[in-house]
């Protein structure tokens, strides 16, 4: 099916884009297009106008500033996956990016677009939540920064206001003693994450001192498994502890979503299994 008719604008600066979004009725921003365009072709999204952001310069840079890495919103998944800075200092993010969709999706899709779309079956929201990342949005009133924990609100609903654009994502540099892993169960037809679990752990002198576990694909947004996190802290990492922590994950996942491929109950089971495996990988990468 073809999309409904729409007008097309191609601004060259963020300011111009913000003006267009404010003044053109029904305008929606377009980045890589791999979420918006399929929705338009199915006519579940029918914007009167598209504001194509892809010619705006300077929003696709990756840079390390001290203990964080800033990634421009228009950075493609393939670039995040291939970035030496991200691979070295935040490997869980480059790993996740390398497994988004397929090569065509990775060569066009952007981190800003993925994050703004807030699809529970996406990979970045889960990983960014586990990392404690922040998302910077820019509006007419200026820039503001939102923690990942607060940014993903619900199904396809993110915290930025209409008229604000995601302009960058900031992730922490993982230091010695820290490790992260992201595992997902891929839908065999769409390749989306049916369930994805991201775990980021810190180990100091043989003891786990911090853990963040995010589970995506169960509800409308990534859920933190806080009881599981608490169970790990203060203990020496072990397979038994990972299993014990993973067994607390289902309690954090009330009212799971389900579909014709996987019921909510099965997704919760997958979440527990993937948590155990992700923790094993994360601890192994922390060097402990």
């Amino acid at each position, binding site marked *: 099916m073809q999309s409904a008719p729409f007008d097309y604008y191609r601004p060259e600066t963020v300011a111009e884009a913000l003006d267009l979004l404010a003044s053109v009725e029904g305008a929606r921003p377009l980045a890589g297009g791999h979420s918006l365009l399929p929705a338009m072709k199915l006519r579940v999204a029918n914007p009167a106008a598209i504001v194509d952001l892809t010619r705006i310069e300077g929003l696709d840079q990756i840079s390390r500033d001290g203990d964080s890495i800033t990634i421009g919103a228009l950075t493609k998944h393939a670039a995040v996956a291939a970035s030496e800075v991200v691979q070295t200092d935040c490997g869980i993010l480059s790993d996740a990016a390398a497994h988004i969709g397929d090569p065509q999706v990775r060569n066009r899709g952007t981190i800003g677009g993925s994050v703004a779309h807030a699809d529970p079956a996406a990979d970045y929201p889960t990983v960014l939540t586990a990392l404690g990342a922040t998302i910077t949005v820019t509006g007419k009133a200026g820039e503001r920064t939102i923690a990942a924990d607060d940014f993903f609100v619900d199904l396809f609903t993110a915290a930025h206001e209409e008229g604000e654009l995601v302009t960058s994502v900031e992730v922490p540099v993982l230091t010695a003693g820290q490790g992260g892993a992201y595992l997902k169960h891929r839908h*065999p*037809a*769409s390749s989306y994450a049916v369930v994805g679990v991201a775990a980021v752990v810190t180990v100091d002198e043989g003891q786990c001192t911090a853990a963040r576990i995010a589970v995506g694909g169960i509800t409308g947004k990534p859920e933190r498994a806080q009881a599981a996190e608490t169970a790990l802290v203060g203990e020496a990492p072990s397979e038994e502890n990972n299993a014990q922590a993973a067994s607390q994950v289902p309690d954090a996942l009330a009212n799971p979503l389900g579909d*014709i491929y*996987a019921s909510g109950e099965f997704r919760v089971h*997958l979440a527990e299994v993937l948590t155990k495996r992700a923790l094993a990988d994360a601890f192994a990468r922390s060097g402990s």
Partner: protein
Amino acid sequence: MDDCGPIINPMIVEGQIHGGVVQGAAQALWEGAQYDDEGNLLTGTMMDYAIPKADFLPRFALGKTETPTDVNPLGVKGVGETGTIASTPTVYDAVMDALAPLGVSQVDMPLTPERVWRAIQDAQKGGE
């Protein structure tokens, strides 16, 4: 192992066999048209209806015999159906063989992860 009589184009013959084997395995493991109670097709796009991609299956080792038929001058026969017909029960039987010690005797195709998981859960509950 297949036999289509004398082979004229080996590449096409191998391609036919590969395709047949994959399609048969797909029926056992992935493909499944689903409808709702009113007859609306739910798996209406390739985002919902799963067919295997190249990396879903391992490489194949093919063997052949060549038994000419006497009902045509070239002795040639058709190719492709053996793969597609035989691979479905082969894959299905392998999965059921693996599940048998857990008390599972019946699972509907396609053998999705959830169906296998539920069969194991049900068998274990039945045993209690």
